């Protein structure tokens, strides 16, 4: 299973984290620090797998962003790499040419999409079309509610 997902940029800034196994807040920061160091220091033409504390981290770099997923030692590494790419494609489709700024300002959207893709550390849906449809449906639910709630909320900071 996937124990956690970490998304960070080349400077090590975290853009998204999602934990499917139980880690305390302290452990989470420690894991992020440790892994960011390992992954950022790896050269460009190396394989996408890092062995780490009896687990395996599958990562891939897209432009300035690193997507990492931590799996069990005997899980299928390439399958996980496919999941990462699948997620990136979905983000790309949603934001139309996704860039880091999209993920910074719309980090919550990145979470919505991830929640449709993964659940309990397992792949939930592999059809991009289905996920796009579900996310769009959620967006419109939020939108409708917002319109109804009038402008009041928007005015107050």
């Amino acid at each position: 299973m996937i124990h956690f997902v970490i998304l960070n940029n080349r400077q090590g800034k975290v853009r998204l984290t999602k934990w499917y196994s139980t880690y305390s807040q302290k452990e989470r920061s420690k894991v992020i620090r440790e892994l960011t160091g390992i992954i950022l220091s790896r050269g460009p033409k190396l394989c996408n797998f890092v062995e780490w504390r009896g687990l395996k981290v599958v990562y891939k770099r897209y432009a300035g962003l690193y997507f990492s997923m931590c799996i069990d030692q005997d899980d299928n590494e390439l399958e996980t790499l496919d999941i990462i790419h699948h997620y990136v494609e979905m983000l790309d489709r949603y934001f139309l040419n996704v860039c880091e700024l999209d993920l910074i300002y719309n980090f919550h959207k990145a979470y919505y999409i991830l929640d449709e893709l993964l659940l309990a550390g397992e792949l939930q849906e592999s059809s991009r079309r289905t996920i796009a449809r579900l996310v769009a449906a959620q967006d419109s639910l939020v939108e409708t509610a917002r319109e109804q709630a009038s402008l009041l909320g928007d005015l107050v900071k």
Partner: protein
Amino acid sequence: MALSGMRGLSVFISDIRNCPNKEQERLRVDKELGNVRTRFKNEKGLSPYEKKKYVWKMLYIYMLGYDVDFGHMEAVSLISAPKYPEKQVGYIVTACLLNENHDFLRLAINTVRNDIIGRNETFQCLALTMVGNIGGRDFAESLAPDVQKLLISSSARPLVRKKAALCLLRLYRKNPDVVNVDGWADRMAQLLDERDLGVLTSSMSLLVALVSNNHEAYWSCLPKCVKTLERLARNQDVPQEYTYYGIPSPWLQVKTMRALQYFPTIEDPNTRRSLFEVLQRILMGTDVVKNVNKNNASHAVLFEALALVMHLDAEKEMMSQCVALLGKFIAVREPNIRYLGLENMSRMLLVTDVQDIIKRHQAQIITSLKDPDISIRRRALDLLYGMCDVTNAKDIVEEILQYLSTAEFAMREELSLKAAILAEKFAPDLSWYVDVILQLIDKAGDFVSDDIWFRVVQFVTNNEDLQPYAAAKAREYLDKPAIHETMVKVSAYLIGEFGHLLARRPGCSPKELFSIIHEKLPTVSSSTIPILLSTYAKLLMHTQPPEPELQNLVWAIFNKYESCIDAEIQQRAVEYFALSRKGAALMDILAEMPKFPERQSSLIKKAEDIEVDTAEQSAIKLRALQQTSNALVVTDQRPANGTPPVLGRVMVPSMSSNVDHHVADQGLSQENGTLTTVDPQPPSADLLVDLLGPLAIEGPPSADVQPQQNIVSGVEGVPNAVEATAIVPVGEQTNSVQPIGSVAERFQALCVKDSGVLYEDPYIQIGIKAEWRAHQGRLVLFLGNKNTNPLLSVQAIILPPSHLKLELSLVPETIPPRAQVQCPLEIVNLRPSRDVAVLDFSYKFGNDMVNCKLRLPAVLSKFLQPIPVSAEEFFPQWRSLSGPPLKLQEVVRGVKPMPLLDMANLFNSLRLMVSPGLDPNPNNLVASTTFYSESTRAMLCLARIETDPADRTQLRLTVASGDPTLTFELKEFIKEQLVSIPTASRAPAPAPPAPQPTSPPAAALTDDPGALLAGLL
């Protein structure tokens, strides 16, 4: 720039981005946190929209790495908002900020349940997602049946059902005891007929979890899995949107094949045939294409197919096809494929007999050892290590040695250890072994542990033909201008013992030997000087007739060190000086060292320990472990009559202190810290006594004694008469089967961690993996047959103490060759007690009937859950529990002295959480924890230790809880831990061997181990 749709949030994010440095960012964050905190305090004035916005801000700040320790309540409360936008935020942020152990989650259970059983589909999805991601035990208890209902409901739409499947998977994985899956086999079989591939993918993941636990129940799913795989592999009836780069859902294919790997075999010939057809198709039909994503996907499927073929132990032809494929992979440029090729080759080594074919790729694998990527190098090293045997050991070890000089620090220790082990296991001749180890020390001295050079000394001492060669080699290294200190130690030792064998060679007169060794003295640390002094004494002794010039030189040195501040050096200097004046008597006292008793290589043991540490849950890794230890040949070194070996004789040659003291006066020489205990383990017939004795007072095997106490034993190698060796031919083996490693030590280790090896002998390895949750536990026994013959009449009976309810699943009567069987064991703690459950395990191998009784590490501390307590909470509680029987106090004597920090660590490892600074006295420790059992439910326990800095062997222990039995048991438990040696592998022997080394009276010990131990001291 896309906007988040919430202006305040966007502005905040922009502000953060504009911060020029980390301090500014922190200031901005603090300001925002202050703002959010104030707004939350005055919750009434907060609109749902605002609340939502602040909760998002909290998540953002949390993601930036700042502690957000408030507002959790607000996030959770949004879950019960009536409108979708707020509810959505509540669910998502809660799932990100909190983990399953968080108390606030319990508050939401009702709302979550209402959402799940309600009619609103979107609410159902949100609730299932959160439970699936962070649901803990409470959720499993109250929601599992509802989730199960949803999964099989005919009215729920696929989007709900696929979430239900994975939500159930989480609940089941975390709490298999709570989720009732009786009769789910049929349901699962139905689910596998599902048309919607989203639901099918999720259901397949669920099936993997279910079959991994109990494949027997799910046989009916097997043909359906094969059908699904066929359908996908032939791309029949797969909607376009479920193909990924032209490949029908690679994920579902992988999952399906994973599920199939949990069935031990496929009996139905038709199903088997169809499956092999599909697998053949995948093996043959996967080509390398340009598109990297397509390649990844198709190879994900291919590697899973390879794993399945290996598991099914297909016909030879298909296997060699697999090896051929892997051979191709390890030669490609693409690093991922190369990595996986190497990894799977290592796995293949474990399951089938393909060593010879794999050996053909040796050159290619060695190339990978020089790859720029450390991940690949690690795989290559592992594979080389696994494929090494007598025929290729020379090549492989030499490659490793060569690589050692350029390898990064992170790998050097592993490399040296592996090289040393291979050299020892497969040495074609012993002089080569000596060469390898000396090279190893030369090239990577810092990474060569003492074990490695102790081992070479043992070999040389025990093999006379080797002695002149080793001495000459040592002499060569001494000529080098700068050598590592370990090299100084080993060569000084070898020259001292065997230098005289070089007598007529040039540059090897005693005086020359002396001066070249003495040159190194100014460069070494105080742990090496004693060895050099022994060498000088030995050189003197071997110089017959005495050379006055050398004598004077050496005496001058002894004189100089007579006033050394280091007691060990001083003692040796004084004693050697006195001895060397005794003339002929010196010859007897400093005669050559006798042969070492044969023993298991501590290196191999160490390597196994390392692997256990890293191999948490992987069955493949566990199998690998067995493979490693397979090569060990164990001899029985236990004296038949059960008396321990006589120590005195072994010690005499170098142990100067024994000349003055009487040999029998062991206790005395022990006290001055120079003699090392040879662990007199009770004979095996008394295993039960040993196991049930609550207190393991026998010292740890002295191989583990700290170096300082070990200087003398260092010279002798590792005195451990009990353990067996790797170099003795099988023929010498006696009848009874002896465990590898100390059973008591393994048990101790498992008391503070949750997985590892419980027992090992030449035939079987019993591993354990445990999960503890409140008053319940689940322990899986991994019974691994290490041999190529089956183990028969396997029997495992649990002898439970009255306070534990234990249920062991069926243990098969036969364990097939090289196979591993998992037996889950459910444990319920009824009430507090220190009694220990015992596993009575027996099997038959050939004519050997082996029976062992093993303590199971279901000890009291496993039912503890550390809990932090603040001063405001602690003191009122502490005061309210006033005096016996709820609060008990005792002065404990005979405590193993340890620094306060170590004691705090010990407590934490026993799940008693130490709160530093809570007690105003820095010599005291305060710890808190929650104990769980059926009778007490969750109960807070507090403990306080007052130590005496002037006398670390005693302390005052106070334990308090709301239950008198618990207080007593916990106090006794802590006491046992303090007086015994829980950190066995590090600690020096705390007590001299008991005067009566046969079974200690267990009953007496139970009464007051502290007092008894104090008496012994």
